[in-house]
């Protein structure tokens, strides 16, 4: 049973069928089998948040999820969320505020921030900090990231109003 297993899942809206070893984690599956390299691999033990993806609508650590566990699931990565425009305003705010330098943490940071903004239209800076507490950034010192999320929340509210 250490032989490959068949999995079938949806990735960014496209049906994917694949043969994978049980030990393969979801981050490596996305990167190496599907060449979706926007999902970054940092610490590989759930600390840094660089591999954050959406699984059935909820954010998870792709490094702590086996590809075989995603069988039957709906996975969304930074590529899908960029292409469909869901994150466009947040990405613009990150650029405008210099909320990224090397960019390594950015895909995970964007997906985690969007998760918060879907749940809270008016998050406090403290709530933003807390929701992003599982995502490491080693460049920016976080203030610009929090600014970008805060300003995006404000712009989205004004658009709705």
């Amino acid at each position, binding site marked *: *049973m*250490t032989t490959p*297993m068949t999995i079938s899942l949806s990735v960014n809206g496209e049906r994917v069928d694949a043969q994978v*070893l*049980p*030990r393969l*984690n979801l981050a*490596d599956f996305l990167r190496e089998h599907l060449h979706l390299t926007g999902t970054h691999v940092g610490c*590989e*033990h*759930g600390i840094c*948040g660089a591999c*954050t993806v959406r*699984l059935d609508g*909820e*954010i*998870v*650590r792709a*490094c*702590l*999820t*086996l590809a*075989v*566990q995603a069988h039957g699931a709906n996975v969304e990565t930074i590529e899908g969320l960029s292409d469909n425009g869901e994150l466009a305003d947040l990405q613009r705010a990150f650029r405008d505020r210099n909320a990224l330098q090397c960019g390594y943490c950015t895909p995970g940071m964007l997906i*985690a921030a969007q*998760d*918060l903004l879907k749940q809270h239209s008016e998050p406090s800076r403290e709530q933003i*900090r*807390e*929701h992003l*507490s*599982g*995502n490491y950034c080693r460049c920016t010192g976080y203030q610009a990231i929090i600014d970008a999320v805060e300003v995006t929340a404000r712009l989205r509210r004004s658009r709705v109003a």
Partner: protein
Amino acid sequence: MKAAAFAYRRATSVDDALDSLAAYGEKAKVLSGGQSLMPAMNLRLISPELIIDIGGIAELRGIAAKGDVLHIGALTRHVDLLSSPEIATCAPLLSKATAHVAHPAIRNRGTLGGSLAHADPAAELPACMVALDAVIVVRGRTGERRIAAVEFFQGIFQTTLSAEELLVAVELPVAQKKSACFFHEFARRHGDYALAGLAAQAVIEDDVFSDLRLAFFAVGDRPVLAGAATTLTNTAVTPMLLSKASEVLSKELDPQDDQQASSPMRRHLARVLLAHCVATLLGRPELRGGGV
């Protein structure tokens, strides 16, 4: 690092999982949310031959209050605990504590049963089980065992769960009208493992503790149910009495030294937590600095 090779089975029922456990024993590991197991495997701290994925077993899910007992299935995720109105009403200590467990992405997958079976001495939920006097329900092929939380945790990553048993649920007494709870922990970063923490459940009548259960964590090899609580029970708490309880606590703890904190620092933090807890529960801010 990457996990070493292993075989993988999706269990279809508890009995099916127990059959696999019986066949593989110590060579198998049960996968629920994987938020502690997968890091350990990726770091090659453990390399099981077989992973038994119980994630799809519906009978292990669900939260239900029946009479004065709250039943929580092992596969209940942290995020489910946080959003459950039953938990907020019947076991508010769990709602408070779960907000401190790791980060949203981890809480979306991590499970109550997984956390308890993993038995990290710095984890929040095992301490809550001890404070709440929970019963841990485990099942083997020969039947069910019901174990008091205080007996269940045996040491660092050690429980009374045998390699052929599965943790299926916990049962908690439903919080009564006069009960109150306190949860706090000190950590380097929000969501990190605590340097020292306290989960407390109390019954307060006429400003006196008629019951007080203080479960300290990250200050020993398992959650510590502090004997110091008896000093503060069924008597009016004075600053002098709190000092005495703090001394008793200091003597009964034997915290570990590691790169995060020294043993004396952890002991000091535990005493600070005790004073905060008593002051908060009794609504007497003047006790906050007591005994430290």
